C-alpha cells in the first residue's frame, strides 16, 4: 500500500509540473494512519431509522508523534465502487476538489488522542446504495493530511447497504388524485354544460 501510494504520489508530482498546482491535495498523498471500524445492526440498513456505530483511532503500531499535526477529524459516508457504476456524479477522482466519493458528513470534531466512538442515525436524504466509512484527519489549515477507512484499499470488504426512504406519502398521493380528478371533472363539466346551452340556444 505504501509503495503504490508512493509511486502514485510521484507520478502525480511529475504531472503537477505541467499544471498550476496551488494547494491541490490529492488522495494518494495521504497516509493511512487511522483505523476505522463500523458496526451496524443488520446488513440492509434503513435511512432515517437505523444507527451505525463508528470507531476510529490512531494506528497504535505507528511511532508516537505521527498525529502531532492533526487538529480536526472528519468522518464521512462514502460510496462503494458498485454504487459508482454509470453514475459519474459519484466518481472517485484523485484531487479532493473534484472527488465525489464521499458526499455525506457524519461528524466533524476536534481531534483527540485515543479511540473515539460515535453512534450516528442515518439521515433521511441518504440514497439507496452500498457504502463504507472514511475518516480524514485535518491540520490547522483544514487540509487533509491522513485518513483511515473501514474497508480495504480496493473497497471490497466490510461494505454495508442503506435503503433510502421512498419520499412518498399517503397524503401526497391523495392530494395528487384529488387534483387530477378535479381537473378532469371540471373539463368534462364545462364541455357538457356548454354543449347543453348551445343546444338550448339553437332550439
Amino acid at each position, binding site marked *: 500500500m505504501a509503495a503504490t501510494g508512493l509511486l502514485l504520489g510521484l507520478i502525480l508530482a511529475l504531472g503537477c509540473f505541467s499544471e498550476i498546482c496551488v494547494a491541490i491535495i490529492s488522495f494518494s498523498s495521504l497516509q493511512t494512519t487511522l483505523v476505522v471500524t463500523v458496526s451496524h445492526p443488520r446488513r440492509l440498513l434503513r435511512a432515517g431509522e437505523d444507527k451505525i456505530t463508528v470507531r476510529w483511532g490512531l494506528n497504535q503500531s505507528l511511532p508516537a508523534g505521527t498525529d502531532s499535526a492533526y487538529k480536526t477529524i472528519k468522518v464521512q459516508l462514502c460510496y462503494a465502487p458498485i454504487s459508482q*457504476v*454509470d*453514475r*459519474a*456524479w459519484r466518481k472517485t477522482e484523485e484531487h479532493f476538489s473534484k472527488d465525489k466519493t464521499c458526499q455525506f458528513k457524519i461528524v466533524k470534531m476536534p481531534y483527540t488522542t485515543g479511540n473515539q466512538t460515535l453512534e450516528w442515525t442515518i439521515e*433521511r*436524504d441518504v*440514497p*439507496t*446504495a452500498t457504502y463504507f466509512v472514511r475518516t480524514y484527519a485535518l491540520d490547522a489549515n483544514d487540509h487533509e493530511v491522513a485518513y483511515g477507512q473501514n474497508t480495504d484499499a480496493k473497497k471490497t470488504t466490510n461494505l454495508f447497504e442503506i435503503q*433510502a*426512504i*421512498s*419520499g*412518498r*406519502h399517503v397524503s*401526497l*398521493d391523495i*392530494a*395528487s*388524485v384529488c*387534483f*387530477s380528478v*378535479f*381537473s*378532469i371533472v*371540471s*373539463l368534462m363539466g*364545462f*364541455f357538457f354544460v356548454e354543449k347543453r346551452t348551445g343546444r338550448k340556444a339553437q332550439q
Partner: protein
Amino acid sequence: MSDIEGSPGSSMHGVTGREPTFALSVASPMVPTDTTAKFDLPVDSEHKAKVFKLFSFANPHMRTFHLSWISFFTCFVSTFAAAPLVPIIRDNLNLKKQDIGNAGVASVSGSIFSRLVMGAVCDLLGPRYGCAFLIMLSAPTVFCMSFVSDAGGYIAVRFMIGFSLATFVSCQYWMSTMFNSKIIGLVNGTAAGWGNMGGGATQLLMPLVYDIIRRLGSTPFTAWRIAFFIPGCLHIIMGILVLTLGQDLPDGNLSSLQKKGDVAKDKFGKVLWYAVTNYRTWIFVLLYGYSMGVELSTDNVIAEYFYDRFNLKLHTAGIIAATFGMANLVARPFGGYASDKAAQLFGMRGRLWVLWSLQTLGGVFCIWLGRANSLPIAVLAMILFSIGAQAACGATFGIIPFISRRSLGIISGLTGAGGNFGSGLTQLIFFSTSRFSTASGLSWMGAMIVACTLPVTLVHFPQWGSMFFPPSKDVVKSTEEHYYSSEWNEDEKKKGMHSASLKFAENSRSERGKRVASAPTPPNTTPSHV
C-alpha cells in the same frame, strides 16, 4: 425598393418564427377594414385583427394571444420541470445515467405523435377546446410524479407529460383564426418563441419552489415531489382560464368555423405527396433537429451539467440553466429579423447564408461549452450557443414558407416533428450512455450540429439559386410562377386551384434581393414576405 408597409406573412396555419419588424399591422388599402365591427382592434372582413397590439388584453384577439402563448409556456414548464431537479431525483429513484438520458428522450418523443393528433382535434373541436382538453388532461400526468418510485415510472411519467407540447399546434391554429394572414407570421413567431421560454423559466422556478419547500421542513426526497404540484396547478388554472375567457372565433361562434372547414379543401394525399417529394423538406427537417432539437436536449441536461461540473448549488445551477432558455425572448425573433434583412439585400441566398452562419456558430459555441473548464467561460459559451441555436430556429422559419405554397402546413409540421426527433436522437446518442461524460457529450453534439448544418448548402431554388450557385438560366424555370405552379397538375390548373400559388409567386419576387427591380412589379402591390 418601395417602403414595405404591412409586410406580411400569408401563412394561414402559420408557424413562421420570424418577425419582420415592420409587420405590426396591415394598412387599409391592402386589406379593407370592416368598419361595422365593434372590436378594440381594427379588423378585416372575417373579423380577424389587422393589428398586433402586444400589451393589450382586449377581447377577443389579444386576449387569445396571451391565453395561447401562456398555455404553451405552461406545457414547456411542466415538460422540463424534472430537469433542474435531476440531482435530487436521481438519488431518490436510484437512477443511472442511462435512465436519466432515456427519460430525457421520452420527454420530447411523445409530442411527435400528439402534435399530429392535435391538428385533427382542432379541426373537430376548435382550438379552444383542443388547448383546454390537452392542458387539463395532461395535468394528472404531472401530478403522477408524486407516485414515481423507480426508473421505469420516471420515464413513463416524463413521456406522458411530454404529450402536452402539442399545445404548440393549438396555439398556432388559434392565432390563425384571430389574426389576419398578413401579420400572422409575427404573431405566431412571438407566441412560439415566448412559449419556448418556458423551458428556461422552469429551470429557475423548480429549484426555487424546491428550496422553499425544504425550508418549510420537508426532506429532499419528498420536497421535489411536492414541487411538481406547482406546474400541475398551473395546468389546471390555464385550462380554466382558456375555457372561461377564450373563444374560438372573433365572433365567438364555433359552428361557423366548422362550416368553413367544409369549403373546398385540398386533398390531403396530394398535399402530403408534394411535401414529401420535395427534397428541401427533408433538409430542413434535419436542420431543425439541430437547432430546435439541440435546444430541447440542452434544456434537459444543462442544469445537471453545471451542478456536477462546477459544484454549484441547485438553485445557482438553475439560474444559469434558465438563461439558456430565456434567451428565446429575443434570440428567436432576432433570427427571423436577420433573415429578413439578408433577404432584402441578397434575396434567398442571404437567408440561406444567415441560417447556415447562425446554426454553425451555435455548434461551434456548443463545442466550446463542453470544453470550458471554468465557470465564467462555460456560461459565456452557453449564452452564445443559445443565441446561435435559437436564432437559427427563427431563421429556419424565414425560409420554410418558400419551400412550398401548397404544402406549407405539412412541411411546417414535419419540420417541427424533426425538431423533437433530433432532440430525442441527440439525447440517446450522447447523454444516455456512460461512454461520454456530459461535457464531451456537449462537445460532440456541437460537432454534430456543424456537420448536420452543411446540407443547407444543397438547397437550391431554380428561381433564386442557392448558397453557392446562381439561379437557373432557363427562361421558364427561373420564374417563381413555374416553381410554385409545378405543384399542381394540368387538371387542377384548369380548375384554377393554383391561383393562390400564382399570387404567392408574384409576391415572393422579393426573394431575388436587390434584383427585384429587374422584374416588373405592378404598382401598389407590396412584395409580401411570408
